[in-house]
Each structure stands twice: as C-alpha cells, then as structure tokens.
C-alpha cells in the first residue's frame, strides 16, 4: 500500500507528472475570471468564494482521468488487481495520492488566489478550512468516476459529466462556509455537513469504486 502511494507520488513529481499543474490551472482560472467578468471589486468580491470553489473543483476534475487511465493503459492495473492488495485499498491510496498532489497544493495556495479575486481578508481562514475539509471528498468521488470510465476510450468528458453532479453538495457547503465567513455569519452547520459528507465519502466510495474497477477490468 505504502509502496503504491510512494510510486504515485514519485510519478507525479517526475517530468510531465503534473504535480503543481492543478495549482497553475487554478491560478490561470483566477486570473481569467476578472478578464471575463470585469475587474471591479464590487462585482468580484461577492462572487469570489463561489468562483474559488468552482475553480478548485475544476482543477481537481481536470486531473482525475490520470488516477486510473495511465495504469490501465500500460497494464499496471491488471497486475495490481492480481497483486495481494485489496482493490479497495488500492483505490483509496490512489485517491489519497491524487489529493496530495492536487488538493493539498490548492489548499495551501488558496489565500493567494483569494487575494487575486478580492476575497475579504476575514474569509481567508474559512476558505482554507473549507477546502481542506472538502477536497478529499472531491478526490475520492473523482476516483469513483475515474474507476467507472477507465475502460472507455475518451472517458475524459464523460468522467466530468458523471462526477460533477456528485460534487454539488460538497460545493454548496464549501462555498457557503466561505461566504458566511466573509460576512461573519455562523458557519457551524455547513461545516458539520461538509465534514459529514467527506467522512461518508471516504468511508464508502472506495467500495463502489473498486466494484466498478473490477467490472472494467473484465
């Protein structure tokens, strides 16, 4: 299991491995939105929490297909399935590796992008907290979508289509936390919900993902 985690992280940091590209994408998106929307603080500030969360979600989404597709292509996945690891564990580890290479950098870099989008200062800690709580769920759900589409050529967009509706509750609560944080409103309820979703997802989705993977390996 640890060997798998180390390998995935090592692959991500190798040339072309895509480490940090999630952050870069997030940066570009945060930079693009003002171009599309216009630069005034009055227009930007109210939508900043939402845009930041949508951006984080898209940055996650773009790298999802790598979770299994490459391993499937080069045959590693077949070999992993015959290895003495439970497939559920392998799925969870791969989702974890995805989170470490994509979600974690986003969490750490989020305040910078908050600045770009004129997010009020007092919302920053909440932005970081909500991302830290929510992104593991995004990675895990993404792994599920990736497992479902892995056999299919060009699963890319289909993957997005399947995964995005699953992201909605996380997105709603995450953005709500940040927005309430910006307004100084109480955030206990959405925080609880978000934590609950993440826990549930991390506990149960590996089973579904492993089942889907087994079907696709047939």
């Amino acid at each position, binding site marked *: 299991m640890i*060997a798998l985690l180390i390998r995935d992280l090592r692959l991500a940091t190798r040339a*072309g491995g895509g480490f940090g590209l999630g952050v870069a994408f997030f940066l570009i998106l945060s930079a693009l939105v003002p171009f599309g929307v216009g630069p005034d603080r009055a227009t930007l500030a109210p939508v900043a929490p939402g845009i930041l969360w949508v951006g984080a979600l898209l940055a996650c989404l773009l790298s999802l297909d790598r979770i299994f597709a490459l391993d499937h*292509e080069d045959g590693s996945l077949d*070999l*992993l399935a*015959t290895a003495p690891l439970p497939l559920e564990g392998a799925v969870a580890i791969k989702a974890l590796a995805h989170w470490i290479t994509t979600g974690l950098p986003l969490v750490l870099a989020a305040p910078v992008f908050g600045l770009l989008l004129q997010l009020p200062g007092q919302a920053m800690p909440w932005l970081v907290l909500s991302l830290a709580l929510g992104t593991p769920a995004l990675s895990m759900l993404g792994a599920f979508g990736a497992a479902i589409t892995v056999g299919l050529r060009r699963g890319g967009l289909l993957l997005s289509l399947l995964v995005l509706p699953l992201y909605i509750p996380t997105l709603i609560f995450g953005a709500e936390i940040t927005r309430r944080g910006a307004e100084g409103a109480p955030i206990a309820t959405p925080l609880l919900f978000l934590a609950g979703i993440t826990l549930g997802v991390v506990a149960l989705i590996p089973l579904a993902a492993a089942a889907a993977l087994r079907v696709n390996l047939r």
Partner: protein
Amino acid sequence: MTLLVVQDLAVSRGGLRTVEGVGFSLDAGQALILRGPNGLGKTTLLRCIAGLQPPAAGRIVIEEDSLAYAAHADGLKSALTVAENMDFWARVFGGGDVAAALAAMDLQALAHRPAGALSAGQKRRLGLARLLVARRPIWVLDEPTVSLDAASVARFAGVIGDHLAQGGAALIATHIDLGLPQARVQDLTPFRARPGTRSARPSGFNEAFA
C-alpha cells in the same frame, strides 16, 4: 503437488464463448504451453485463470495469491527508472530480490535508465523480470517472448527452467518455440466453441433466449 486444476472450463469474450471444455492440471515443476491460432481465445483463457474475468462455465482450482500474470502490456511506468519500476512491484508482491532479478534478465546496465527510454525488447525483459520478484509459484504468461532476440529467448527459457526446478509451474501461451523441452504442449484448437451447436450459444443472458 498440484498447483492449478482447470476442469471443463469455458470462457467468453464479447458475450460469446471462445473455447470450452478445457481441462488440465499443473503440478509443481511442470510447464504447459498453450497453442492455437490467432483469435482462438488464449488470452481470454489466461485472463480468466488469472482471476481478471469470471469463467462462463467450469471450475478453476487454485490457491489464492499464488499466481503471477504477465500480459502483453508490461505495466511499466516510463517516467520511473528500471530499478524503481522493479522496486515497486517487489514491494507490492512482498519481497523478491530486485538486483538478482535484474541480473537474471541482463538489465543491470540499464538499471538507472527511465523505462520509457528502453527498446521494445528491453521493455519486455523488464516486464518479465517482474515475475522473479513476485515470488509466486504459478506463472501465467501470454506470449512472453514477443520482441525478444534469440539470446534473450534462451536466457528467459533458462529462467523458466530454474523456476520449475524450484517447484514452480508455468502456463504459457505462445506462437513461437521457447526452447523448453520439458514443457507439455496442449493445442487448444479442438476446444474451440463450436458455432451452431448449443454449446456455442452466446454465454449468459438466458443463452440469448435459445
């Protein structure tokens, strides 16, 4: 000691049986070579034995986690070096001496080369070296010598011989001669699922309402 027993096995691919009625058993120290024309169903049969797809009928008796499968794709990461690739599989399969495996397949000189920068035959050798660190008694090999030159084929035959001598077994699908005199050869052609007869019925879904 019998490691693998296959009884009256039928496998299907794309909803259609490919071979059926296949039966054999594999004892420690034995190698079995499966032959048959292209498209007969050898790959399907091997995947089924490796547990990657369910059989359409029949039984496969095998101890859990006793099998190492080498498919056509080698499962190599081109960004990792040869040694790193091997290390990973050694750790996943719990053990195995990487240096010895590399030496056995004559890959020491390439140990620090990224796997993506190997030639076709070198990649294949690396894929086969993985078998040595998997420490599994049964090797299931699908056309293992594709792209290998004559010297490498001989070297690999030696590796298989050692494996058998240590009480292992090997099940190999191939079209070319491997130079393994001790191996039994089974031609799968007679087991082709016959069309027209009931036995060639589409597998599953109430036999396509026959």
